[in-house]
């Protein structure tokens, strides 16, 4: 069905939505700290897909966000890299202090 039509923005949004949900579920279910991080990356990626789709002049010559979409996607990517660096540092610290990467055991501040 898709192969004989033309791809519209909606299909890109759908892919973005699926990636977003996969990432969210990943964040919720993984017990490994790094698994949670990967979920975050997927979520950001899904969101980025929306920006690209709306900013694309190829998909929507009229009414597209134009450059703004691409620029915001760029900023998201840069911030995601920063986020990953800090999160990894936190993960390593957590591992050093607790000798585990299981987020369920990060409950020391629990009263």
């Amino acid at each position, binding site marked *: 069905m898709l*192969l*004989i039509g033309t*791809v*519209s*923005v*909606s*299909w890109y*949004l*759908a*892919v*973005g*939505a*699926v*990636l*977003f*949900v*996969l990432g*969210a*579920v990943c964040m*919720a*279910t993984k*017990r*490994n*700290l*790094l698994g949670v*991080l*990967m*979920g975050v*990356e997927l979520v950001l*990626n899904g969101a*980025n897909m929306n920006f*690209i*789709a709306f900013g*694309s*002049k*190829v*998909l*929507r*010559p009229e009414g597209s966000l134009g*450059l703004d979409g*691409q*620029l915001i*996607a*760029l*900023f998201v*990517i*840069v*911030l995601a*890299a*920063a986020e*990953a*660096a*800090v999160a*990894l*540092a936190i*993960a*390593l610290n957590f591992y*050093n202090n607790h000798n*585990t*990467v299981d987020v369920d055991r990060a409950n020391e501040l629990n009263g």
Partner: protein
Amino acid sequence: MDLIAVAWPYWHQFFFVLFAATAIGFGFGVLLSKNVVRMAFYLVLSLGSTAGLFFLAGAEFVGAMQLMIYVGGTMVLLIFGVMLTAQKDFINMDTHTQDWILATIVGGSLLMVLLFGAFGSEDWKTPQDITDAEVQATKEATPLGLALTGIRVDTLGESTDAVAEGKSGYLMPFIIVSIHLLVVLIGAAYMARTKKLSHATDDKSSRAKLMLFKMEHEEEQLEEEQYVVTHRAKSALNPLDSENED
């Protein structure tokens, strides 16, 4: 010959389906795999396919950026983390069944809402035609770079108030992001540095002091509980004392 002559202008669709399927498929791989390293590997492939989708949508610079920063930089960092923490106990961690059920329900409903939104608007659903020349014109990276330095080539003709005041560019966010990156660099390096007190110091006396400190600490706790254990700790402490003296 007849088969060959079939016109087939559906390359965009073909590659869209290809990249979307790999992106989503490997996304499921990330979700369902239990091994951390394999998860990272699937994530790389998923992000790479997404970069392919970006290329397809005409955002070449963002696609290359995705490959370079996300896949090249972030993922290497991630794999680093995996390796530093990948030990037999943590490499496979099972998720509790109730978590799975809950997450699937919540995620499924979220997906329904998002898909409903995605296909809800008639404007988004109807594909628009575009010629090859127009497609080529959208792939320029120069306007992007200019926009980052505060000049919007695409809105020059509009001469709205925002443009007149030079507000439509992204110079300010660009500077903020660069400073942010610097802060993150320093912060991450500070947090992930080797702790001098934990291990791997060549200074013998400081290591001994650390052990002493640990044991004293232990001792305090234990004193409240049991005298016998404390006694044992003290006897273990003695040789260290003598070592510390010289």
